């Protein structure tokens, strides 16, 4: 049976559930949370960039280095279309990525 985790965002004001084999972006959109702009779902356009405040994730596809440098990824930034949770996660916005 697959695990499901709680993803919290906007300083605790919103949360949604995401399965371990689902991308955080797909789960967020399906549950209409976050109002995050989304684009290619392939790690190429960079629109779904957010900060991972806490929580482990598994990267299931490459993120374009034009949008997430190695240094940015090391300090917690990620493209939500490329990651699946490995535990409960807390996310915060990056300027310019909300409608």
């Amino acid at each position, binding site marked *: 049976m697959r695990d499901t985790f709680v993803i919290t965002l906007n300083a605790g004001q919103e949360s949604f559930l995401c399965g371990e084999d689902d991308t955080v972006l797909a789960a967020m959109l399906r549950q209409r949370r976050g109002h995050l702009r989304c684009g290619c*779902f392939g790690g190429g356009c960079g629109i779904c960039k957010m900060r991972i405040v806490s929580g482990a994730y598994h990267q299931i596809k490459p993120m374009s280095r034009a949008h997430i440098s190695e240094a940015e990824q090391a300090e917690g930034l990620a493209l939500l279309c490329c990651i699946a949770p490995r535990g409960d996660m807390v996310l915060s916005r990056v300027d310019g990525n909300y409608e």
Partner: protein
Amino acid sequence: MGFNKTLRPGLVQIRVLDLDKTLHFYKEILGLNEVCRSSDGLRVCLKAYDEFDHHSVTLRLASEAGLDYVAFKVNSPEELERIKDEVVAFGYRIDVIPPEYDQPGFGKRYAFTISTGHRFQIYSDVKLADQTPMIHNPDIWTEPPRGMRATRMDHFLLYGPNIAEAERFCKEVFGMYAPEVCNTVDGNRLAVWLTGSNKPHDLAFVEYPKPGKIHHLGFYLNDWTDIGNAADWIAVNRLKLDVGPTRHAITRGLTIYFWEPSGNRIEVYAGGYSAYPDHPQRVWDSDQLGRGLFYYSGEMVPSFLEIVT
């Protein structure tokens, strides 16, 4: 048909983040044929079934998605040299790429950067593909077209700064004309559609502050039925749809936009009017662009204008 010096956009090199997955899309879903691979395994050359030249699309494994360059075929070696001289006279520095350098089958190419930050190349000589369309009492295909049944690489929309200079370059040096334009309320160019043939566009530009961006790469399908077939392939394969199926009022094309697995936006497109250089130019006001792009809804889709690779 080329009316002018530049026959058509004949080659693009696209960066992909996941070569195997993205190649599967281009071959089995879009319907291109694999022609060859580089010895290091990092690049794959492809062509559509109805194209004659060696290949038209090269995928390169990279850490960023987007466009490496576009290359235009011109109509003779003499014209190639004349255009090269005109590129230099226009003020761009030329790099020479020797024959068979990194694109098998291609002769000498000249490369340069235009005002929008895009790398352009020109060439006149390219080998015919091993499998071309038939020419003697021809059937319509030799092997049944696959997937979306793309017939050719058709055009691209590029985003970058100073498209006014890019437009002037394409007209003055490439001999192209602009069947359609879009201007802001204060009269500045927001977008231009350019062609060297009677396709409504060989390429288009949108004014954008960041250089060298690509909005989409367009492939030609036969008709509206094939646009519906493409939509089915998008749905079955869980590709991310952007817009459509719909019609553009601009170019009159029937269209659908989506993203391939590495995040490059693809358009499959059919129809469109026949352009002629003597026809009056169609002009759009930017506040009507929603209707110009998405004729049926008449409404702009924000992600369409804002997201580029």
